[in-house]
């Protein structure tokens, strides 16, 4: 790895550990290997959003050309969000692509992602299904996102009726996550989800 990238990540790592956001448990960075090329980030779901109370783990890969190129970031924790792929965790955020600036840091990236969770951009979606739901059935989106947060990110809100629908599908031999994806994609319409799963 280019020297400047490693050196900068080291400095940033120290900076982010000392930062007040870490003190408030809002963000967290951990090393995955010794060479500072790969890190594990964690952000707390922002308050007053369906993600509140959840902890979202991120994979951060630092390219050799960092900071002249953005780090490659994706969600490891499954999340229901218009700008994040519910399948791969890929993030659609301008600063991680063409709007990157060399002065941005791991800390600002994580904080930007946190901001993205509270202010989705459905017109520039990563996950078209989620984005459509976000625009057409906002309440359904909130429920779904909350449910996903509860299941995958350790969120507090239990959704008994949604769990019930999933159990109906798992009883039919469908894997739980697939059942959840199908139900979420069809606005928790059990019939259409079943149809899609068995077609």
């Amino acid at each position, binding site marked *: 790895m280019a020297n*400047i990238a490693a*050196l*900068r990540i080291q*400095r*940033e790592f120290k900076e982010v550990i000392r930062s007040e956001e870490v003190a408030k448990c809002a963000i967290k960075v951990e090393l995955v290997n010794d060479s500072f090329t790969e890190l594990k980030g964690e952000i707390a779901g922002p308050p007053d959003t369906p993600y509140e109370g959840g902890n979202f783990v991120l994979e951060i890969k630092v390219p050799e050309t960092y*900071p*002249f*190129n953005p780090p490659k970031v994706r969600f490891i924790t499954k999340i229901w969000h218009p700008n994040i792929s519910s399948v791969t965790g890929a993030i659609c955020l301008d600063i991680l692509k*063409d*709007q*990157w*600036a*060399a*002065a*941005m840091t791991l800390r600002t990236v994580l904080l930007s992602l946190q901001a993205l969770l509270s202010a989705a951009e459905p017109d520039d979606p990563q996950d078209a299904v989620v984005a459509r739901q976000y625009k057409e059935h906002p309440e359904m989106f909130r429920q779904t996102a909350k449910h996903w947060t509860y299941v995958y990110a350790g969120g507090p809100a239990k959704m008994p009726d949604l769990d019930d629908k999933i159990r109906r599908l798992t009883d039919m031999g469908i894997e739980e996550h697939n059942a959840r994806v199908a139900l979420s994609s069809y606005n928790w319409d059990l019939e259409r989800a079943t149809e899609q799963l068995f077609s």
Partner: protein
Amino acid sequence: MADSWTQSVVCRYFKNGMCREGSNCRYRHWNDGNNETTSSSASSTNNVCRFFKHGICKFGNQCYFRHSTGTIDNNLINGNSIENSTEYASNISTSTARKNIKDNTRIAEEWVKAPEFVPLQVAGSSSTNEASTNSGTSTSSSMSISYAQAVNPSGQASSPSLEPLCPFAEATGICKKRNCTYLHGDICELCNRAVLHPYNEELRKKHTNACVKQHEVDMELSFAIQRSREKSCGVCFEVIMEKASGEQRFGILPNCNHCFCLSCIRKWRQAKQFDNKIIRACPECRATSDFVCPSMYWVDTKEEKEKLISDYKCALSTKDCKYFNKGRGKCPFGNKCFYLHALPDGTKTDVGPPVRQRRNADADVDILRQLILWDFFEERNSRWIYDVDLEDIVSLFSSSEESDWSEFEFPIE
């Protein structure tokens, strides 16, 4: 008998007292012109004994050479007939000469007080003459005046304000000479050196002004260092003054006040993977700047920055533009280029406004094709590879609207 030219050269053997050729010598012997009959023994007596001159000759009266402090002219007048009397005189002068040497060493300590510069030998002869008449008086008793006065015979005319300062005291503040006859200046409070002329108000003022000015420059520099010391680059996060010696340079953006090291901001502005709008913007605040100004120190105030940038442009305007290449090339920046567009004979030329790029992609492609073709010819004809690589040119031409000056190197500093 002899060549004419040798006759004009004095025989060096004869000069030293002995020539076996005698009158047959091809070279000239003393008095050859006047008197052909000079023998070797006679000539030797015309030569003064070297040892005697220094006060000691162990041969005494038996010496082959003359024991006399008189000049050769005197000897010629004296002649051989009065040899005895001169020998007698020389005995006396031997003792006086010795005494003189003693005196000289004692006096040497106070040489600065000597009335005037007197070569040793002349002094010796003159004191010999004096010694016979009034042996009591010596040079030490005469009025002591400084060299400055000796040089200027009308001593009273020179005013004290024109006298020079003691160079030792001026340079180091220490003058080891106890009774130094030079003026010792007053201590300048600013530079702590004894350089203020005690009598010359004009020189004092001149020095104080120079000192104040130097002090201001020093202060400015230390302020610059102070405000630069802690600054770190917004890209590499390193403290710029603590980087490797070649990289301790700031890249100042004209349109915002964010701090970067020159290498980082230049690298960012050359990034190919982003839009020009992104890379020409400050990585921190996204304010667009057209160029980066290199600087050894950080600038805080608007005035400092303006001065820095105008100095930078001024320095660049004296350097030949590598694109214009003394008229052989074409500069894409046109008359907006910071560099010098001058023909080989030195005349400056206005190449007109820069070629505006159309946003339309076709135009860009056209220009690129031209460049590649031109490059190809260039290489084919002379096998000479242009030192600007094609990528550079491509990035130059693909830049929209304004041009990016930071691509230029600035080798001054």
